């Protein structure tokens, strides 16, 4: 029997701001533009929103701030759970459950950040109690560098394999007018870019940009009452293995190995059914780890899998078709943007980067230091 949440809710509105540099604007002002655009896309007014889902490293009490700031008078469900950049992906599970149970009817998931031009640039979030921090790891990159070093040691993954992830992302970004970095990039360019934390050079690391995104989610029974084709949530799985990287049981296996099977089971799919993949590529090792833990290749084979061109434009498994956090946009919590890109692909409106005939999109949001993983499966009406 199908899971009751399979296809129970659908995204009916998406909104983005320009990416890159939005000087002089606060993160809430950027978030506001994304919300305005998402509500307009759905043909909804703000007072029809009754579920508010959002969080930000800048906002301790976002759950009460956002309704006040945006004048949302009718909020019945609030969730500002912060598990890092996957918070919005995690919120989709909560929003789907709340909508399905009738606790709310219109859920808004939203984010904005001025990480590039704002005064809060750099430094990253406070992850709370940490016995790692006194050693002064350069976070978050250091945690991911340790995972990459272990993967290289255990499986023979090379810096060239890592670089291939960045090159693929850039090739997609070159097809996306919104992407922040669109200059040509080669494996050699990545290898000669500035060393940050070995084994990573700066082009192994995601961008720091400004930007915002928002989506509107409703129950499937009314999903066709909106201007755009609904994109249904077919499956979701959320898992966590640790907070600090020292507490991650195995640095070569992420919580995707738990989250993805749950999402597949709910959706009733296998990796073979996936047309397009959108993942949180905070660092080049992420994509390799996630492809393995998704089951697109065996553990340890992610490097050669990527280097063979599988995820690049023209490859069998198009991944991060917007250019990803590595080349398109990364304001600190990138999880929102993978969902918006998945929706554009499934609506068939992704322009030069459109994956022809895409019906099923697989997303994975990453939070903290590989700490939280949330896998989502989206599908068109034909997949219901």
């Amino acid at each position: 029997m199908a899971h009751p949440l399979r296809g129970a809710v659908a995204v009916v509105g998406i909104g983005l701001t320009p990416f890159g540099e939005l000087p002089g604007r606060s993160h809430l002002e950027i978030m506001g533009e994304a919300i305005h655009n998402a509500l307009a896309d759905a043909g909804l007014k703000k007072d029809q929103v009754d579920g508010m889902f959002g969080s930000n490293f800048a906002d301790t009490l976002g759950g009460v701030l956002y309704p006040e700031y945006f004048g949302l008078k009718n909020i019945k469900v609030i969730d500002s759970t912060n598990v890092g950049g996957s918070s919005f992906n995690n919120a989709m599970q909560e929003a789907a459950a709340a909508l399905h149970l009738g606790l709310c009817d219109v859920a808004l998931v939203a984010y904005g950040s001025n990480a590039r031009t704002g005064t809060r640039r750099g430094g990253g979030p406070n992850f709370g109690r940490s016995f790692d921090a006194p050693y002064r790891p350069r976070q978050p990159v250091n945690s991911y560098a340790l995972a990459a070093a272990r993967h290289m040691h255990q499986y023979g993954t090379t810096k060239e394999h890592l670089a291939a992830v960045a090159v693929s992302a850039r090739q997609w970004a070159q097809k996306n007018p919104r992407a922040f970095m669109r200059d040509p990039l080669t494996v050699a360019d990545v290898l000669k870019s500035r060393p940050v934390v070995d084994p990573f050079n700066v082009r192994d690391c995601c961008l720091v940009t400004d930007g915002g995104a928002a989506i509107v989610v409703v129950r499937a029974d009314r999903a066709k009452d909106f201007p755009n084709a609904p994109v249904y949530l077919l499956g979701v799985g959320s898992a966590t293995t640790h907070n600090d990287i020292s507490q991650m049981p195995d640095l070569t296996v992420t919580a995707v190995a738990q989250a993805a099977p749950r999402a597949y089971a709910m959706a009733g799919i296998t990796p073979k059914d996936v047309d397009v993949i959108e993942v949180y590529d905070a660092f080049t090792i992420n994509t390799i780890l996630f492809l393995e833990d998704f089951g697109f290749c065996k553990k340890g084979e992610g490097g050669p899998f990527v280097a063979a061109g599988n995820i690049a434009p023209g490859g069998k498994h198009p991944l991060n078709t917007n250019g990803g956090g590595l080349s398109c946009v990364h304001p600190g919590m990138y999880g929102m943007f993978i969902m918006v890109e998945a929706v554009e692909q499934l609506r068939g409106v992704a322009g030069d980067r459109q994956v022809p005939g895409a019906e099923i999109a697989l997303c994975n949001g990453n939070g903290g230091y590989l700490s939280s993983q949330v896998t989502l499966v989206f599908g068109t009406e034909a997949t219901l």
Partner: protein
Amino acid sequence: MASERAATFQGPGPDAVWFENVKNGKFRIQKCNHCGKAFFYPRPLCVHCGSADWAWIDASGKGTVYSTSVVRQRPEDGPDYNIALIDLAEGPRMMSRVTGIAPPEVKIGMAVEAYIAPLDKEPLVLFKPAGRQ
């Protein structure tokens, strides 16, 4: 009515005890009396089985590098330094720095031993290659 059980520990919590020990040059970790496994960082409940029945033990200081990295710095910010994850002989893993060797020369699988020294002002458990003075 809440069940009336003994407090999980007497006096200051494990967090405070850890820092007091390190300040006094002692590297001690917790070991569960119920499941027999050691754990780090300090916590009131065994992270393996959930038991509140544990004791402090002296760590042997022996460890193996599980993963390693080099933090690259601009010259004006100071020299590059090592950040590593160390698997302790007792089982737990901790972040630390391996010193006394060029940062890129720290290798996964390398045997290391602990010492306590200030990094900035705060004394920390650091490591050096095993068998070196």
